[in-house]
């Protein structure tokens, strides 16, 4: 059993444990904190897959920005009552059944999937490779992503700002 296996199992255990905790905890803030563990260990999985730049982006965006923005959302809304789902148990059972059925079908499909090929040299100068790929082959999607971010920024501000008519009434 090599070190890569041990690292994979530890990271996968932490990530799935964070997810299970998220499903079972009662307080909303605790759920978000449990998911931080998941996001950080997914960054570790990216390092195992020799994607160091994506790992750094994962830590910055997911365990930094998105967690903070979700905490803002929780703090700005009413969070005193717990996030416990009090829906009918029948509905929960159906959701569980559907999820398990989906997982089983997908598991049968991917259980023995192996293409036998492995990329070499992804890890040396990883950021440089990504930069060359983005600025030579994917320039237009890159620019579109910047437009998308601008649209999301303006749209979020307009959606969340107070309505002038309502404030005047």
């Amino acid at each position, binding site marked *: 059993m090599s070190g890569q296996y041990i690292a994979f199992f530890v990271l996968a255990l932490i990530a799935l444990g964070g997810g299970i905790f998220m499903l079972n905890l009662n307080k*909303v803030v605790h759920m978000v904190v449990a998911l931080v563990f998941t996001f950080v260990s997914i960054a570790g999985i990216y390092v195992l897959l020799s994607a160091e730049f994506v790992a750094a982006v994962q830590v910055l965006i997911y365990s930094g920005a*998105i967690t903070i923005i979700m905490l*803002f959302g929780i703090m700005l*809304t009413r969070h005193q009552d717990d*996030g416990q789902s009090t829906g009918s148990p029948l*509905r929960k059972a159906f*959701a*569980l059944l559907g999820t398990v059925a989906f997982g089983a079908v997908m598991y049968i499909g991917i259980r023995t*999937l192996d293409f036998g090929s492995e990329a070499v040299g992804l890890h040396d100068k990883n950021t440089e490779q990504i930069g060359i790929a983005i600025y030579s082959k994917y320039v237009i999607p890159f620019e579109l992503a910047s437009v998308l971010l601008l649209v999301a920024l303006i749209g979020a501000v307009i959606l969340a700002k107070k309505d002038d008519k309502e404030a005047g009434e």
Partner: protein
Amino acid sequence: MSVPLSAYLVFALLLFCIGLYGALTKRNTVIVLICIELMLNAVNVNLVAFSKYGVNPGITGQVFSLFTITVAAAEAAVGLAILIALYRNRKTIHIDEVDSMKR
């Protein structure tokens, strides 16, 4: 001997199932949003895994996952803005009380 591709895929599948179950059963809309983020993250794991062990291994999968992360961040910001506008108008963030189109 490295970890096989199917191990990463099964890991991503389990994460996706956790996110799907949470998004279907949780009442708090913030938690539903963050469960959707978890599902997108599982898809990113798949993309990066295929970029190392896929049919044509290369850097492309990592570039794809970067674009996915960008779109996911934009989606989280807009979703949260919608949530705050909803909270201002309806004074609730419970997803089963947002049913004015069902009445």
